[in-house]
């Protein structure tokens, strides 16, 4: 037990950045887990007598909106949605991009050309058009949005995995495995994949942050969360109407997005420093 803990904590000691990022992440996970308990009010129910209370009003830590709804509770209740969308889309992008990237590195010739062309085409496809069209077909919602973001962003993983796989596949231990007639799927999954892990961890972290921003941007445009779900992008969109009378309505979700993304970036920076130090 002690040994496991030591091994887990060793990288944190080595990099203060990673420690800070991990601590921040722990804080966010706590907020996510305790979200419902920490909400002081019903995020959807307002008291019109208390509308537009500024931040710091007794009972309303972050103030209230135009319908008198408590902003702190609303910001908290938007967290699971955003994190959920980012998680699902990242995993989808990782699976798709990782598989295709590895295949492009392993199979030279046509498979490689086709996959690389597919990467280029997806990258040059205007993501917003796809997002709007899928919303038009399937309606707004958690799964349409997550799947759209995943399908549009897998080339990020494919590119990195492809480059790193080319390097790893040229290493002696892979050649040794090939000489010993280990079959290809086994080489890819058993020999290549473990080597890709550090790179994947870094890309996944940064991509997660990008997906959070993308989700809030789409919700901000009115294309993400269904009406009524108080995601941070939707809160920002609502706040635009009260820019003059209630600036705190914008400040709270904007700060929340920035803080979450910055803490994830810290983690990513720490992971990539760790990866560089290992080499």
């Amino acid at each position: 037990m002690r040994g496991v803990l030591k091994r887990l904590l060793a990288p944190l000691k080595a990099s203060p950045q990673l420690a800070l990022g991990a601590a921040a992440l722990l804080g966010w996970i706590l907020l996510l887990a305790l979200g419902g308990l920490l909400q002081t009010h019903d995020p959807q129910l307002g008291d019109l007598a208390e509308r537009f209370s500024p931040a710091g009003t007794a009972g309303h830590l972050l103030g209230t909106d135009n319908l008198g709804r408590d902003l702190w509770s609303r910001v908290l209740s938007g967290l699971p949605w955003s994190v959920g969308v980012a998680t699902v889309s990242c995993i989808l992008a990782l699976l798709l991009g990782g598989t295709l990237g590895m295949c492009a590195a392993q199979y030279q010739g046509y498979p490689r050309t086709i996959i690389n062309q597919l990467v280029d085409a997806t990258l040059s496809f205007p993501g917003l058009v796809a997002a709007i069209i899928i919303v038009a077909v399937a309606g707004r919602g958690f799964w349409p949005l997550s799947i759209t973001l995943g399908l549009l962003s897998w080339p990020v993983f494919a590119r990195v995995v492809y480059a790193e796989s080319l390097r790893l596949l040229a290493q002696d231990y892979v050649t040794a495995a090939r000489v010993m007639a280990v079959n290809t799927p086994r080489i890819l999954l058993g020999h290549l994949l473990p080597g890709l892990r550090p790179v994947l961890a870094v890309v996944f972290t940064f991509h997660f942050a990008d997906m959070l921003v993308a989700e809030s941007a789409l919700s901000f445009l009115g294309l993400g969360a269904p009406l009524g779900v108080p995601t941070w992008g939707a809160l920002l969109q609502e706040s635009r109407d009260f820019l003059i009378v209630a600036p705190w309505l914008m400040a709270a979700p904007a700060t929340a997005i920035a803080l979450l993304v910055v803490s994830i970036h810290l983690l990513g920076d720490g992971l990539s420093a760790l990866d560089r130090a290992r080499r």
Partner: protein
Amino acid sequence: MLAGLAQRAARLLILLLGVNALLFVALGLAGDPALMLAGEDPTPELLERIRAEYGLDLPAWQRYLVQLGRMAQLDFGVSIYSGQPALEMALEQLPGTLLMAVLSMGLTLVTAIPAGVWIGQRPEAASRRLGAALTAVAQGIPGFVMALVLIQLFVVRLGWLPSLGYSQPAAWILPSISLGFFLAPKLCRVVSAGVAEAMQEDYIRTARANGASMRFILWREALPAALPAAVALIGAQFAFLVSGVVLIETLFLWPGIGLLLLYSAQNLDFPVLQAICFVVAVLVFAVNGLADALLRLIDPRLRPATQ
């Protein structure tokens, strides 16, 4: 060189066909444009007439081929809403998008490169570490959040700047800062990493031992070593800028490709969407080609071995 160019052109063609096919399928799934055109409570006869007029009554593969044939002649049809030729509409937005791209890229270059060189000179110094930490934080703040804060501050609170349109240069300031703020931290980090690495090299130590000034060493010896990575990133960032920055253009009502893209996508205006995709694909292709050529120019290792 010519063979390379032909290969690139062939790849562009394949790419355009792929994007076009994807868009055709996606738009086909999006719903019946005849219903949208007909307005409220359409009669079956009216729907029939609209379908015949726009060729919507043909089977999908025929529509695809007809459309492909027209596109080969750069005819994307007319906008379903304004009746204006679609390609013309997309090209009209081009100056706005290019202006924004050049302004924000310029701002990014003049801030990120000096800052990156400064941090990279002695990355272990306390002041530089603070600078590096600040760029790390700045990188995490989404561009549209920054834009909202800037509007709140300079338009609503202080009333110093206009926030809409691009008829007057004062309105150019906030959009370019929002985008520059989003792009600069990344470039700054790439430059500082490259410079910091170069500063450890033997040739820099030799130059210092020979009494070269710090300014000469940083700008003429260390920065060039960091340039290939920087130029690759600048190319990618510029490609992002010309492909329509929807959020920033929407926030500032900037008449660029992004605004038209959002508008026509919301209205399912097929011809305009096709034209925009075409224009963007050509632009991105041109930017990538330029970036590649520039990379070859500044990095001799990338040139094909001659003799």
